[in-house]
């Protein structure tokens, strides 16, 4: 199944929801919801290079846009 392609408005809606949760004190749930939105590829690349691939995986980021940009095996290269 192909990864979903997110529009700006779809991302914004989820991000807004995550801030509502954060403002209500539900930080972990806010992070979980926020992680539904793909992390921008250049930020994912920073995370991989400066902290390590495990960091990105453990943080639960959606890496679909990074995979589309850098290739499916980009994390292990």
């Amino acid at each position, binding site marked *: 199944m192909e990864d979903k392609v997110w529009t*700006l408005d779809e991302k*914004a809606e989820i*991000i807004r929801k995550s801030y509502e949760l954060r403002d209500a004190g539900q930080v972990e749930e806010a*992070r979980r919801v926020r992680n539904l939105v793909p992390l*921008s590829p*250049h930020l994912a690349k920073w995370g991989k290079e400066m902290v390590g691939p495990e960091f990105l995986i453990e*943080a639960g*980021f959606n890496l679909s846009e990074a995979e589309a940009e850098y290739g499916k095996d980009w994390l292990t290269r």
Partner: protein
Amino acid sequence: MEKTGLLDDILRSMDDIAVGRKKLVIEGEAEEGRWFLAKGLSLALGVFQNAGANDSNDIETVLLVDHAYLTEEKRHCRPTETGLLNSMNVAIGSFDDALRACKAVQDAVGYKVAEMTYSRQRKYRFRGMPKDAFHNACMAHRARLSNNLSTAGINDVERKVYAQRLSNMIAVQDAYLKRQQNALATDN
């Protein structure tokens, strides 16, 4: 807050700020754009505040958080802003050097040898310790952040972010000094 919580939140904040920037230039969505910019910046401020609230022993995390922020700031420089781009490149490179120095100072034996290569003249020392890549990075970044603080037109949250980053740099420089002192203690 754990290291990974800080680092992943700083990435989220920058992504959210980017959404704000995009919406800012879409007709009819500027207000929403400003909302995302403000929220992203507030999240970033929280990260910097939490990073500074630690006992500063996690020097690497404080550096990484600022490294991420600098890298993202650089992306938003216009190609014609060559002076600013150069400054950003120097800052990011110096942070890479500072992270290397953090590793070096953990090796007491190796660092004692490295210390002998530094002149004992005051200008090459920071409170008696080698003024190495870490100190150089911190002092340059402190000057940069101080300059940013005196820039006209920045909003209150931006000002708080710069101020917190400056405070964090001062704290980690003191923490690094202690690491140097520990590494160079004669009974190590």
